[in-house]
């Protein structure tokens, strides 16, 4: 039950209402030219003189242990420089828990091609062990044990029991109608609906030692978290791990060396190989190697009590969640927060008075489960489906059911629903499921998804620094990877806004030395929510310091006392507020007066006019380091239309409308990019994407981009992007800009909207991906 309520919090005295840079359209993204011209160098593009290559062995079996490896033939192959096995490197495992797992050994050679050949020459004696892919099978008595080392009796990784509000039985008694149903997300047999990241850039790292300092170029999303983990794995101090991150191909939650074994173990192999050979080593994953992490699957039996007006009185859910094969993830991600996510969503976001949720996380011989843009897919799918089921059962308009049950329907949800309905023509187009056939013979369907927006500064661990150079240019210091959300440009807009300089005067170079400051990975749920805080603070402090120095210069120049409080800066020009005609440029302010480096301003005996940079830094502690448990006050509502061909079973998504309340828009084009990008991308989840396993061997059959089918430009219809700025978020959580992230939401939620629309079209709820065979079966055609 929702314990906290949000009211329209008035803006505080320090909060901006007028913006010079933030929210402005037409600002060119920093990464635009480098990416369009081919200048942008990704980790895959790093070539160092004398560089060797490395590749890791992949298990051909879904569950197997290496009894021995004879490396002699591989070592003798021309061009091979080193072969490293689990016997040489403690962190490397000898047991595979899914087919394709990178374990056991790696080879290092002159070329990548020689590595590929040499891997085939490794004489590996495998002990095949029994396996299970399907999570329902895994729970049956006598099922093969996936992780006997961790769960010796059964395949249950973790079980959780969650209750909120009153006893559910009491709630069910108050209901006019009890609905029971099964919701499946990525949990079918044979890999049905299991989705992977399908990132753009196959993971790579390049390792180079300088004495005992390791320089590591890496396709990494969140360096701030990865650096301590990798340093621990390598057994070196964090201070001796020099991580270089920059341009990063779409990763969508994948390239997290902090959590995912293939990556930190890949670094371990590469760094050892570099040590042995005294040469830089580049370790590259193949496309097949990239299929090493999947989304969590959900099989959920749901029982809902509702009143005839659409009010839900009680909810009971029995969840089975595929936790994959990895302990770190199953415990840290798949199990605890993510099992509770279902409760968090239903209790935090709705007025449902009685909720009971049981969740069981199951081991299977599938890859590590992780955030596949994002880790809340199953919770979002369940959430979006439950209310659609309720609306259908009652014959109600699902937007009305939304407003009946949302914990905080006003103002954010209501505005999103109103705008979205208008854009798609909901009132004219909505109909009861399976009742509208178009003149072209196809079924028409229209669907809704709604929930809160997410992506607040939950993990306030970012630090940042700014340097105002003597020529007036401003350098931002903070290592971060790119991922595609134009993060550096967005942060620079905030800094320019706060500091009062022109956007053009600010630069934020990629591939910085990390010994400065580390931003959160922008691709990791909380990028802007977290990183906006230190940059805002940096801007404020730098402005203060700059005006202090300007005051001294002006005092001397005007031969009267000028105080910093009397000054302001706009568009990189410092001026006296009372007499705006009296101005000072930033370089002139930095000339100083009687200052001495290191001595502070105004010290006697200092040289006059020595220009010095101005540096300001903000550590993570300065912005809080807090964790919030509340769901934010911001909402999203998405609408779509589909046409379903009853003859071919083909589903065409003809129209999508995204309505997202992000609190405050920083970079409008980038926000919209996340809207149409996420919506179009998740078309694949709804319609085509899934793993295919061979049930007899446990081998994943479609680990490539021909057979794992992602959206192309011909697949999805147009997307209309509507952004809202209600600014009702709690500044404690959303910062003074009261902003919230947008990057994950569409990809996580619009597929549910498509499912709901298909259900509205044909009157049957299908599991994703909604392939033609499923449609035809549902229509009784096959």
């Amino acid at each position, binding site marked *: 039950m929702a314990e906290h309520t949000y009211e329209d919090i008035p803006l505080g005295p320090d909060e901006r209402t007028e913006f010079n840079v933030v929210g402005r359209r037409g600002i*060119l*993204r920093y*990464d*635009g*030219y480098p*990416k*369009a*011209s*081919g200048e942008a*160098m*990704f980790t*895959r*593009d*790093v*070539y*160092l*003189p*004398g*560089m060797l290559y490395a590749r890791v062995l992949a298990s051909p079996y879904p569950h197997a242990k290496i009894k021995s490896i004879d490396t002699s033939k591989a070592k003798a192959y*021309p*061009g091979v420089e080193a072969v490293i096995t689990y016997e040489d490197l403690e962190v490397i495992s000898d047991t595979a828990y899914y087919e394709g797992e990178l374990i056991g050994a790696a080879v290092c*050679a*002159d*070329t990548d*091609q*020689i590595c590929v050949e040499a891997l085939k020459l490794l004489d590996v004696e495998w002990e095949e062990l029994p396996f299970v892919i399907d999570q329902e099978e895994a729970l049956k008595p006598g099922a093969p044990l996936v992780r006997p080392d961790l769960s010796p009796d059964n395949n249950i990784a973790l079980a959780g029991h969650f209750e909120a509000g009153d006893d559910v039985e009491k709630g069910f008694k108050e209901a006019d109608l009890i609905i029971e149903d099964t919701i499946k997300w990525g949990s079918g047999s044979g890999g049905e609906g299991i989705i992977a990241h399908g990132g*753009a*850039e*196959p993971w790579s790292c390049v390792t180079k030692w300088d004495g005992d300092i390791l320089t590591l170029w890496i396709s990494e999303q969140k360096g701030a978290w990865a650096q301590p983990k990798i340093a621990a794995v390598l057994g070196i101090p964090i201070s001796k791990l020099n991580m270089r991150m920059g*341009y*990063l*191909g*779409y*990763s*969508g939650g994948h390239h997290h060396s902090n959590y995912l074994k293939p990556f930190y173990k890949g670094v371990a192999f590469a760094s050892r190989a570099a040590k042995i050979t005294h040469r830089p080593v580049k370790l590259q994953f*193949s*496309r*097949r190697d990239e299929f090493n992490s999947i989304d969590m699957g959900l099989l959920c039996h749901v029982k809902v009590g509702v009143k005839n007006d659409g009010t839900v009185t009680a909810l009971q859910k029995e969840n089975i969640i595929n936790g994959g094969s990895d302990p770190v993830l199953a415990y840290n991600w798949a199990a605890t927060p993510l099992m509770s996510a279902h409760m968090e969503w239903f209790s935090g976001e709705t007025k449902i008075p009685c909720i009971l949720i049981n969740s069981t996380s199951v081991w299977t011989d599938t890859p590590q489960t992780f955030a596949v843009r994002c880790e809340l897919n199953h919770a979002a799918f369940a959430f979006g489906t439950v209310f659609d089921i309720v609306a259908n059962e009652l014959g109600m308009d699902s937007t009305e059911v939304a407003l009946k049950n949302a914990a905080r329907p006003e103002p954010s949800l209501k505005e999103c629903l109103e705008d979205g309905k208008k854009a798609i023509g909901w009132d004219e187009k909505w109909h009861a499921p399976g009742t509208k056939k178009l003149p072209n013979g196809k079924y028409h369907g229209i669907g809704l998804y709604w929930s809160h927006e997410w992506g607040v500064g939950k993990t306030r661990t970012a630090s940042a620094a700014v340097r105002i150079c003597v020529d007036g240019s401003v350098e931002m210091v903070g290592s971060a990877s*790119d991922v*595609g*959300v*134009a993060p550096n440009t967005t942060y620079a807009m905030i800094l320019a806004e706060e500091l009062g300089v022109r956007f053009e005067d600010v630069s934020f170079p990629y591939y910085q030395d990390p010994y400065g400051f580390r931003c959160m990975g922008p691709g990791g749920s909380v990028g802007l929510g977290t990183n906006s805080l230190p940059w805002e603070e940096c801007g404020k402090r730098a402005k203060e310091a700059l005006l202090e120095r300007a005051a001294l210069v002006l005092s001397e120049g005007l031969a009267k006392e000028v105080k910093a409080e009397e000054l302001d800066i706009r568009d990189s020009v410092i001026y006296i507020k009372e007499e705006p005609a009296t101005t000072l440029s930033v370089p002139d302010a930095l000339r100083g007066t009687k200052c001495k480096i290191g001595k502070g301003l105004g010290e006697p005996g200092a040289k006059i006019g020595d220009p010095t940079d101005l540096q300001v830094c903000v550590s993570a502690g300065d912005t809080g380091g807090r964790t919030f448990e509340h769901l934010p006050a911001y909402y999203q509502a998405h609408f779509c239309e589909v046409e379903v061909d009853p003859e071919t079973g083909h589903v065409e998504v003809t129209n999508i409308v995204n309505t997202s309340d992000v609190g405050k828009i920083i970079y409008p*084009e*980038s926000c*919209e*990019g996340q809207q*149409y*990008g996420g*919506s*179009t*991308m998740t078309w694949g989840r709804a319609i085509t994407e899934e793993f295919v396993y061979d049930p007899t061997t446990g081998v994943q059959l479609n680990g*490539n*981009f*021909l057979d794992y089918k*992602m*959206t*192309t*430009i011909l697949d*999805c219809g147009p*997307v209309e992007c509507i952004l809202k700025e209600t600014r009702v978020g709690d500044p404690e959580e959303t910062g003074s800009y009261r902003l919230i992230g947008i990057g994950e939401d569409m990809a996580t939620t619009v597929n549910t909207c498509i499912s709901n629309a298909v259900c509205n079209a044909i009157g049957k709820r299908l599991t994703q991906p909604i392939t033609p065979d499923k449609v035809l079966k549902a229509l009784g055609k096959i």
Partner: protein
Amino acid sequence: MNKDKIPKNQSGEISRREFLKDAGLVVGGAAIGSTILLAACGDGEVTTTVPGPTQTVTTTAPGATTTVTTTAPGETSTVTTTEQVGEVTKTATVTETVSTFVCPICSQEFDTLAALKSHFEAEHAGEAPAALNVVNLTVNGKQYELQVEPEWTLQYMLRDKLAILSPKDMCGGFGSCGSCTVIMDSRPILSCLALAIECDGKSIETVEGIAKAGHPLIEAYIRNHCMQCGYCTPGFIVTAKALLERNPNPTEDEVKEAIAGNLCRCTTYPQHPIAVLEVARELGGG
């Protein structure tokens, strides 16, 4: 190599020194370009230095003509002409597609190998030999002469040997993502599926060349946010440029069809037709 006697269309207009400067000083330091450097660069590929007389069999795409070229015998020859001839004849018989024999020095064509040989001995005796597996090609307007291994893909040659990094590797050489697309003689092709050895005489264009030429597609792509992570962007721009050359006035559907083979996981798709059609109008096509 006696460069002075070789016509421009064979040697290109740059000296070997210039070539090495252009090709060799790459990020990776895997210097390229000459037989010697290839052998010394230590990347493990077996390279053959052929000081003697050679006949180079250049097989172009399946179904196309196989051309046998004979180069001049050198002073330090260790391979006899007889063996060479025998080998070449055999190859020609197997493929059964030999139609002409082209002199590599003066490009004169002959119907038989014997005729070419006579011509060669009469006209070019004593001229410098060429190495095996040498391709002459133009990349972004610059001419290169490269010795390549038969298994090298064009993508590998561009990235690892010429440090032209824009043909990206997304799908792993399966030809399923379009990220490595380059323009070859006005057609967009997948450089991961083309062999470098097939590229003799070809003209290749990558996004580096398109950007250097200041093509309006670059600005249009930036302005319209046609990139997010940017990994696939070069492949899209290259494909779009080839489309506009072929069809200066495309419809939105034609743009979509042209770039349907390019995958973008960030899914920036809606922006691409906007940018390409803007450029078509700007260039006067639309």
